[in-house]
């Protein structure tokens, strides 16, 4: 395609401008993806280079170092201790002791079982005298995987710390050579509230994220490569084990279940993904534009009681969602308040199928989501609307622009520019909007063709609620849920990547400062 310079672009007709933008957007998608892979490749190469450099550095430190340095390769922190840096030395040593103790007592056990996630499942034992069956539980695949992952985390952390310990010796030698004084333990502590303050601040949050976010995600990804499900729960019936890429094959085969008369997983996935994207689109943009409308109405000059209108809407934000959503869900039910009222007044003979007809249900969730989302959007947009420089409007008025033109030419572009990143997060957030769907419909009405193979699937199910149902239904296909989870990640990542590369306002975060 032809690329226009800024001047040429400005001279284009409206229609051509639009076409140009659209085409350049579409072209940027494959480019963006390509760019992404190039980046990954570069990253890998860079990482490899770094590892090689590190190894070389460790080697030189060892060869050129004195006996204290050499000993501290084995006894961590020895170099620090020998040079009077007690605090650092003790920390290193303590870490090493704890690590070795852990590996000997439990870590080694988990690691050794990790290759096939346990050998011996539970056994049922019959006691003839008491006429009783009891169960002897043996290996527990789940725990082996969980603590195996944790142990690997420790080993990585240990290697990292060991490397730091080696670096310390190099550093000490350099500092001593240059004739400066080494930092004392007191200095170290002091720097924690000053130069190194960021480490103090980040320590606790990062530990939390590591244990309660990163570790579970790693675990979840690993589950996709096992046969962990309701019939192999790893504890009370049968152990689960590694199956390689088999689950991805099952997921993406068009014929996986069709022989048994069921819809294939890939078809189900496609159906749900389509609805998820439709939902996310409508949920994001209806809220966005209607929220903006409400905000503009309240902000309009000459409208009184601004604060009251705002308060009324904001109040609904305060009430916990599970109350409002569950209440509204029941209100729209077959025998709910709304249907009963309409029937009592004789306006309808049959209850309206809000939750029982697929199309009705889909439209109803989108409309109720507007009810949920507008107050929040109203707040956000109010702030930005008030920041639009007033003189823009003044000059537009002088040029004779009417209200609609002002909106199109000034308000909307300004809003879109500022809220671009917000729209993106809001879109991906809506894709994963578990609460609204689960509390309103629970996925209903049932999609029979898709159900059966992978738990109960409904017409309003998003990928995220489907995933939840897979793990809780009778079959509990955790491995499949894990594959779906990875797919959700891929979809969200792709969308973010594309939008990130197209939107101007996210690119440089420093612009905002």
């Amino acid at each position, binding site marked *: 395609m032809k690329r226009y310079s800024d001047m040429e672009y400005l001279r284009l007709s409206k229609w051509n401008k639009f076409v140009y933008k659209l085409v350049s957007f579409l072209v940027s998608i494959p480019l963006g993806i390509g760019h992404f892979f190039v980046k990954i490749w570069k990253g890998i190469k860079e990482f490899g280079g770094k590892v090689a450099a590190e190894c070389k550095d460790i080697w030189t430190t060892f060869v050129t170092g004195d006996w204290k340095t050499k000993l501290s390769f084995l006894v961590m922190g020895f170099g620090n201790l020998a040079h009077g840096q007690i605090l650092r030395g003790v920390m290193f040593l303590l870490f090493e002791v704890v690590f070795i103790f852990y590996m000997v007592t439990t870590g080694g056990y988990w690691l050794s079982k990790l290759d096939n996630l346990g050998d011996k499942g539970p056994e049922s*034992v019959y006691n003839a005298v008491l006429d009783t*069956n009891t169960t002897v539980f043996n290996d527990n695949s789940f725990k082996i995987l969980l603590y195996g992952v944790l142990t690997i*985390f420790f080993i990585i952390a240990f290697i990292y710390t060991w490397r730091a310990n080696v670096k310390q010796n190099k550093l000490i030698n350099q500092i001593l050579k240059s004739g400066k004084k080494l930092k004392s333990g007191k200095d*170290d502590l002091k720097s924690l509230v000053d130069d190194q303050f960021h480490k103090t601040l980040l320590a606790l949050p990062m530990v939390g994220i590591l244990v309660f976010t990163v570790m579970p995600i790693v675990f979840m990804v690993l589950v996709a490569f096992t046969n962990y499900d309701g019939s192999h729960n790893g504890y009370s019936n049968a152990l689960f084990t590694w199956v390689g890429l088999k689950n991805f094959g099952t997921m993406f085969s068009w014929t996986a279940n069709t022989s048994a008369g069921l819809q294939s997983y890939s078809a189900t996935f496609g159906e749900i993904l389509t609805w998820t994207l439709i939902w996310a689109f409508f949920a994001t943009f209806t809220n966005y534009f209607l929220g903006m409308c409400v905000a503009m109405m309240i902000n309009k000059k000459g409208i009184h009681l601004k604060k009251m209108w705002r308060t009324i809407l904001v109040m609904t934000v305060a009430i916990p969602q599970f109350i409002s959503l569950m209440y509204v869900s029941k209100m729209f039910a077959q*025998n709910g308040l709304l249907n009963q009222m309409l029937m009592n007044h004789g306006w309808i003979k*049959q209850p309206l199928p809000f939750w029982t007809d697929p199309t009705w249900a889909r439209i109803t969730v989108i409309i109720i989501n507007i009810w949920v989302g507008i107050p929040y959007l109203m707040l956000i947009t109010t702030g930005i609307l008030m920041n639009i420089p007033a003189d823009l409007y003044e000059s537009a008025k002088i040029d004779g622009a009417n209200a609609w033109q002002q909106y199109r030419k000034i308000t909307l572009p300004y809003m879109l520019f500022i809220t671009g990143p917000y729209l993106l997060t809001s879109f991906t957030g809506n894709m994963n909007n578990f609460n609204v769907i689960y509390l309103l419909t629970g996925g209903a009405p049932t999609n029979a063709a898709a159900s*059966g193979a992978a738990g109960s699937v409904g017409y309003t199910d998003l990928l995220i609620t489907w995933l939840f149902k897979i793990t809780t239904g009778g079959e509990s296909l955790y491995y499949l849920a894990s594959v779906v989870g990875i797919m959700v990640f891929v979809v969200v990542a792709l969308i973010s990547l594309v939008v990130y590369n197209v939107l101007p306002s996210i690119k440089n975060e420093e612009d905002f400062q």
Partner: protein
Amino acid sequence: MKKILAIALALLMVLSLVACNNSNSDNQGDNNQGGGEQAADLAGTYDVTIWAPEAAVELTKKQVADFNSSNEYGITFNVTVEPVSEAEAAGNVVTDVSAAGDLFFFAQDQLSVIVKAGCLTKLGQGAAATVKELNAEGAVLAAQSGSDLYAYPLTADNGYFMYYDKSVIPEDHVDSLEDILADCETAGKLFSMETNTSAWYIAAWFFGTGCHSNWDFDEQGNAIALDDDFNSENGVIAAKGMLKLLNSPANLSNSGVDAFSNGAAVVVSGTWAYNDALAILGENLGATDLPSFTVDGKSYHLGSYNGCKLLGLKPQEDTKKAAALNQLALYLTNEKCQLERFNELAWGPSNTNAQADPAVQANPGLAALLAQSPYSVPQPNIPNAWWDIAKVIADDVKAAGNDDAAIKAALDKYIASAQGCVTAPAE
């Protein structure tokens, strides 16, 4: 420089050490299986947790106390009774059996799922014989997977029949679906039965014309075969009967008796709804068996599923405790306890002696269930997925209209999907 990291890792480690210590102690159950233990050796105090539905919590506490004071083995239970609904119990047990109640109440449709997860203790031979002897045949069937008993029947009242408003439907009309629908339409009232939304009720139509749907399960709780003729000629007749209701303006797919206060003259529901229905309709409330429908001049009485509530024992590691809990489970499901539950909660007993009790026979809800029982089918084990697959039969049939071939095609589609629930024999 890396102190923070070190502290962090030390923390991590402490955390995991705690966790691992904990996990290692899991296996310290009493695995003593040495022979020579006599029944009397069960004497002792045991801590147990029971999961019972909210309504039954207090009664269960009382019954365990009765057991403590009356049993011949010197067993004392330190009991905690947690309110967990039958539906929730099954899910929780499967998710984490070690956290589950030792004994738990659950609905029979969950049996195969729990057996499959290995979360139920198979009954010993003696206990199995006792259960088989004392309980109605259908209830025993409900507690079986393969040929083994996995649970203790608590009730046999999980079936449905017809509640109706006597002021709208005259007594001599209650046997005919056509008459009832005509009455409803004239009075502008609704006929409320979950035909569009629940496979449990849809099956009633097919059983009415003599169709069957039987599942075979193996001992691991896998469905290994389905014998289902809903797509036969009789199935098409059943679907045509169903269409009479579906095409009527009086059709409401709902099983809550609150519908009576909102325009319904008939609600197909179960014994659990009796008191609520009575509160709304008072002396106008009628309860009887389901009606018959007529297709091509021939009359068919609507069938039904009749199911049970079961008491399950989770896998135990301690033999003595398992044996003691077995005694408690037998006690909680005996005639006396079932009658107590009938008196306080109106749960219909599965114990044959209790079923014959005059008070039970006189209960209007249970009487209606009894009247329906010649037409009812004991609910077998059914894979969970079936409920979703069969749920849409009504909508599909309605979409097919009155065309026999199209109805047959819709039913064929259902059979194909249902056959998908059959697991291939284990590799």
